[in-house]
C-alpha cells in the first residue's frame, strides 16, 4: 500500500459488523469506529470495503462517521496486576468499568488491562553483563502469593544486560536495558491470535489432580492436556468447571465465562476470595484470572474472549507455571463466529457454522500443552472446554469437531442429572486417552494397586450396564446370585465413589488418598462378598450387610481414616459371622 490512509469513513452498519471505505488496513488491525471511537477489528477485506467487527454496541452509529486504523493487532497487556482481575472479552477490567460508567456496561469507554500507576517491587535475578535471550526471566515481583516472573519478551533480540534495576516501579518504567538497545519494562503486549512461542512441546505425563473422584479415578486429564465437557443445559458443565477451577492442582487458573450467565461470574467473584487453595492455604482468587463476556455482552468481544484468556494462560506458562484454563462455553464462542460469519454473508457450512469452525477449534486446543519454555523451564496449559450442544445432541458440529481434537471426553448425561446423580458424567461414554501415559505416575505416587483398582471398577460398571439390560426384561430377582452381588457392588461404586456433591464443604474436594481408600473399601466388600457366596451365604444377607451402609457417610467426613478402618473391620467380622453360620 502506497499512501497510508489511516482514516476512513463508515459506509454500512448492520449489527456488530460494519463496513468502512477509504481506509488502508490489514487483517486483524484494531480500528476505532465512529464518533465515539468504539473498538473494532478488521475481519475481512473485499476490494475497497474494509469489514470490521465491533466490540461494542453499534446502535445509533451512522454511515459517514469516521473510522481510524491504529495499525495494531488486538493485544493484551501482560505484566503484574493480572491475578485476581476480572476482564471482559477484550481485557477491559470490569471493576474499572464500574468506576467509569456505573453498574451497566455502556459503550465508548476504554480502560487498559493493567494499572499503569501502581508500583510493584521488582527484584532482579540477573545482573549486568548476563546474556539474555527471549523468554529469559530477569526478575521477580511478588504479585499475590504467586511470584510474577518478568521475562524478556519473545519478540526481543538476545543481548547482554547493560543495566538492571531493583526497587519499586510501574509496569511502564524501564527496569532493564540490553546492549542492543532494547529497553525492558515489567509489562509487554502480545497479540491474542498468535500463540506464544516455546522451545519444545512435551508429552503430558503428569495428571492434573482435580479432587473429583470420577475424573481422577476413571478419566484423568494430564497437565497440559485437553478435555471437553459436553452436556445439555443444566447437566453440570459450569459446576464441574468451577470445581476444577477451585480444586485442581494447577498453580494458575484462567476462567473464561464465554457467552454465559452474569450471575455465574458473580458467584465466582464472591466465592473464590473466600475459598482456600488446598495446596497453599491462600485464597483461591490469588491464583485466578477471570474473563467474563456474558451472553448479553457484545458477540464480537465474546469471540475475542477465548483468545484473550488463552494468551494470558500461555504467559503464565512461560514463567514455568502449570496453568489450567476453563472455557465455559466453547459453543457460545462458536456461535459468535457463526453470527459474525453470517453477517459477512460467508458461505455457511454445517448448521450455519462457518467452514473454518474446525480449524479455529483445533488451533485453540493446540495452544494447550506441557512445554519446555523459552527459559527452559517446564510449564503447562491444560485446556478444559465446556460444550453446549443444541437439544443435548452430541452429533452437532461443535461437539463433533471438538471430539476430534481433545483427549478427554467427559460426557454429561441429562438422565443422570435429572435423578441428581452428580457429577452427571456418564461413565460408559466418557473416556481419557491419557490413561497409559499417566499410569506410571500413579504407580509411583499413589499406589501400585491404583491402576488395577481402576480397571476393576470400570469392569464392574460395564458389567452392570449389561446386567441392567437383562433386569429391564426380567426384574432383578431373576438374576443369578453372583450377578446380584455385582449389581450391588456397582451400586456402591456409583453412589459412593462416583457421586460427589460439589456443594458439600467436605465432599467438594477429595484427595487421591481418600479416593484410593474408598475404592479399596468397596473392593474389599466385593471380594468378601464373592467369597461368602462360595461359602454358601445367601445373597440377601450379603447385599444387606449392615456395616456397608455407613460407607457413604465417609464422603462427608474430613478425618475419615479411623471411620473407614472401623467400617472395613466391621464388614470383615460381619462376613466372618455369615460364613460361619452358613
Amino acid at each position, binding site marked *: 500500500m502506497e499512501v497510508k490512509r489511516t482514516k476512513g469513513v463508515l*459506509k*454500512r*452498519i*448492520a*449489527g456488530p459488523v460494519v*463496513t468502512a471505505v477509504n481506509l488502508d488496513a490489514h487483517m486483524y488491525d484494531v480500528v476505532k469506529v465512529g464518533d465515539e471511537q468504539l473498538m473494532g477489528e478488521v475481519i475481512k477485506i473485499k476490494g475497497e470495503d474494509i469489514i470490521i467487527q465491533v466490540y461494542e454496541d*453499534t*446502535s*445509533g*452509529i*451512522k*454511515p459517514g*462517521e469516521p473510522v481510524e486504523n491504529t495499525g495494531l493487532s488486538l493485544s493484551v497487556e501482560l505484566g503484574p496486576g493480572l491475578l485476581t482481575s*476480572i476482564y471482559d472479552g477484550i481485557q477491559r477490567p*470490569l471493576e474499572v*468499568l*464500574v468506576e467509569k460508567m*456505573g*453498574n*451497566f*456496561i455502556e459503550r465508548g469507554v476504554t480502560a487498559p488491562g493493567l494499572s499503569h500507576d501502581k508500583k510493584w517491587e521488582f527484584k532482579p535475578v540477573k545482573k549486568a553483563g548476563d546474556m539474555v535471550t527471549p523468554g529469559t526471566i530477569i526478575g521477580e515481583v511478588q504479585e499475590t502469593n504467586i511470584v510474577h516472573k518478568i521475562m524478556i519478551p519473545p519478540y526481543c533480540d538476545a543481548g547482554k544486560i547493560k543495566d538492571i534495576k531493583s526497587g519499586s516501579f510501574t509496569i511502564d518504567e524501564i527496569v532493564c536495558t540490553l546492549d542492543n538497545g532494547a529497553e525492558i519494562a515489567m509489562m509487554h503486549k502480545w497479540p491474542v491470535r498468535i500463540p506464544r512461542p516455546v522451545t519444545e512441546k512435551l508429552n503430558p505425563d503428569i495428571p492434573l489432580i482435580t479432587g473429583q473422584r470420577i475424573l481422577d479415578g476413571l478419566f484423568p486429564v494430564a497437565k497440559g492436556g485437553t478435555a471437553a465437557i459436553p452436556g*445439555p*443445559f*443444566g447437566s453440570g458443565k459450569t459446576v464441574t468447571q468451577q470445581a476444577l477451577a477451585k480444586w485442581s492442582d494447577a498453580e494458575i487458573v484462567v476462567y473464561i465465562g464465554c*457467552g454465559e*450467565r*452474569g*450471575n455465574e461470574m*458473580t*458467584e465466582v*467473584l464472591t466465592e473464590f476470595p473466600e475459598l482456600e487453595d488446598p495446596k497453599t492455604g491462600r485464597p483461591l482468587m490469588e491464583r485466578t484470572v477471570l474473563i467474563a463476556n*456474558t*451472553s*448479553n455482552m457484545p458477540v464480537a468481544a465474546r469471540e475475542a474472549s477465548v483468545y484473550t484468556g488463552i494468551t494470558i494462560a500461555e504467559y503464565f506458562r512461560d514463567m514455568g507455571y502449570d496453568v489450567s484454563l476453563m472455557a465455559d462455553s466453547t459453543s*457460545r464462542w462458536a*456461535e459468535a463466529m*457463526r*453470527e459474525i460469519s*453470517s453477517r459477512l454473508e460467508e458461505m*455457511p457450512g454445517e*448448521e*450455519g457454522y462457518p467452514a473454518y469452525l474446525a480449524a479455529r477449534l483445533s488451533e485453540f486446543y493446540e495452544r494447550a500443552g506441557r512445554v519446555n519454555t523459552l527459559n527452559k523451564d517446564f510449564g503447562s496449559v491444560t485446556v478444559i472446554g465446556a460444550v*453446549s450442544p*443444541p*437439544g*443435548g*445432541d452430541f452429533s452437532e458440529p461443535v461437539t463433533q469437531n471438538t471430539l476430534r481434537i481433545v483427549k478427554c471426553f467427559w460426557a454429561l448425561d*441429562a438422565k443422570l442429572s*435429572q*435423578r*441428581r*446423580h452428580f457429577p452427571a458424567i456418564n461413565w460408559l461414554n466418557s473416556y481419557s486417552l491419557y490413561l497409559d501415559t499417566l499410569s506410571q505416575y500413579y504407580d509411583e505416587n499413589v499406589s501400585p494397586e491404583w491402576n488395577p483398582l481402576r480397571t476393576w471398577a470400570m469392569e464392574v460398571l460395564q458389567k452392570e450396564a449389561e446386567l441392567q439390560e437383562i433386569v429391564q426384561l426380567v*426384574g*432383578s*430377582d431373576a438374576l443369578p446370585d453372583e450377578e446380584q452381588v455385582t449389581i450391588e457392588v456397582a451400586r456402591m461404586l456409583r*453412589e459412593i465413589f462416583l457421586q460427589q*456433591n460439589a*456443594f458439600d464443604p467436605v465432599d467438594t474436594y477429595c484427595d487421591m488418598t481418600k479416593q484410593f481408600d474408598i475404592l479399596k473399601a468397596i473392593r474389599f466388600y466385593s471380594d468378601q462378598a464373592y467369597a461368602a457366596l462360595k461359602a454358601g451365604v445367601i445373597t440377601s444377607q450379603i447385599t444387606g450387610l*449392615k456395616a456397608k451402609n455407613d460407607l*457413604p457417610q465417609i464422603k462427608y467426613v474430613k478425618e475419615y481414616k479411623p471411620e473407614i478402618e472401623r467400617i472395613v473391620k466391621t464388614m470383615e467380622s460381619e462376613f466372618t459371622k455369615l460364613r460361619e453360620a452358613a
Partner: protein
Amino acid sequence: MKEYRTITQVAGPLVFVEKTEPVGYQELVNLVLADGSEKRGQVLDTSDDIVVVQVFETTTGIGKDTGVRFTGETIKMPVGKDMLGRILSGAGKPKDGGPDIVPEKRLEITGAAINPWARGSPRQFIQTGISTIDLTNTLVRGQKLPIFSGSGLPHNEIALQIARQAKVPGSDEQFAVVFAAMGITKEEENQFMAEFERTGALEHAVVFLNLADDPAVERIITPRLALTTAEYLAFELDYHVLVILTDMTNYCEALRQIGAAREEVPGRRGYPGYMYTDLASLYERAGIIKGKKGSVTQLSILTMPGDDITHPIPDLSGYITEGQIVVNRDLHRKGIYPPINVLPSLSRLMNLGIGKGFTREDHKKVSDQLYAGYAEGVDLRGLVAIVGKDALSERDRGFLEFAEMFENRFVRQGKDEDRTIEESLDLGWDLLKDIPEEQLVRIDRELIQKYHPKYRKKAE
C-alpha cells in the same frame, strides 16, 4: 424532521428506503401513511445506498406513497412512578383509557448489560407456597426461572398462584409485578386481568398487553418495554419486581418471522442463528445490583411446541435461564395440580438461598433424597409394565410406592394452598420415613437423627 418518500421495497415486516441522509443503526422510524395514520419501526441495516426498516405493526397500507421520518434517536421508553396500576399496549401506549405516562425519565429499551462486577448474588429465598418449587426447585430474588409448559396445561394458574403467594418470609419491602403478554388469547388476558383485579394486585402492577390479534412484530419490543420498566422500578425506585413474560414462544416466532423476511440463513428448525444472543438480551435482565435495594426476578412462561424440551425455544431458554419449572402432561392427565415434574425441573440458584440461616439445614439433603427416590420409583414403573410388580424386590416395591405417594401428597396441592417451607420439609420427611433408613444415602446421619419422624417422635 425530513420526510422521505423513497420506499423501494416492502417485504413482510421490512421496508427498504433509498437515498436518505445518514441514518443511525437501530434508530426509531416513524412511517406516515397516505391516510395520515402513523406506524413505528426501527433501523436494522443502514448504509449510504439503502436503509432497512423493521416495522412494528402490520405493513398493511405501506407503499411508495408512505412518508418515512428518521427520528435521530434509538427507541426510548418514558417511565415514571405513576406507571403502577396501568395497563399499556404491547407498544407501551395506554390501553386503559387513562392519560399518557408522565415521564420522569426516558430510557433506552435495549438496556445495557449489568456489569458482572456490579451484580450481587441472589440468595434471598422466595416462598411461593408450592412444595415442588420451594423445597425442590427453590426460587430466589433476582433469579430468572421460567415455566416450561405445553399448550392446554395450567401454566397460567401456576404463574398466578406464584404471583399471589410469593413472599420473602419476614420481609415487608415494597414489591411490584410487571406483566408482559405476547400473543396471548383474549381469554387468557381475561383470566390474568380478572385475577389481578380480584386480588388487588393491579395496584402494584404494570401490564403490557400484546394479544394474539395484535401485530406479531410488536412482540419484539413488548418484553423490552416491560424489562425497562422493571429495571427502573427495581434499581431506581427500590422495588422488588417480579416480571412475568408470557408467552416467550410467541416472541420467538416473531423473531423467526423477521429473520425469514430478511432472507437470513436460518439456524436450527428455521429460527435465527442469533436467537440465543437475542433471548439472552432479555433473560439476562434479571438480578440484583450491589448497593441497590430492589431486584428483578423473572418468571417467564413458554409453551414447548409438541411438548418437546429439545425444541430450540425451550432449549436455548434453558441454556440461559437459571433453571426451569417443567409442567407435565401426564401428571395433568392424572388430575394432579400443579402438574410439575420435578425430574427435569431445576433451580440453579437454590444452593445459595437454602440451608442453615436461610430455610432449614436439612433442606438440600431432603431435596436430593426426594429426587433420588422419585427418580428410582419412576424408572421402576417402566419395569413393572413389563415384568409385573411381583418380580420386583422388596426394596424396589418400596420405591414404586414412594413415587406414588410423592405425586399424590407432595406434588399435589390446592390452587389456594399456601404451604410454608417448614410444612413442605416436614411433608418430605413424612414421605421419606417409609424408606428404610439405611437407604437414605443422600442424607447425613446427623440430620436423620434430628429430623426423621422416627427420632423426632421419640424426642418429643
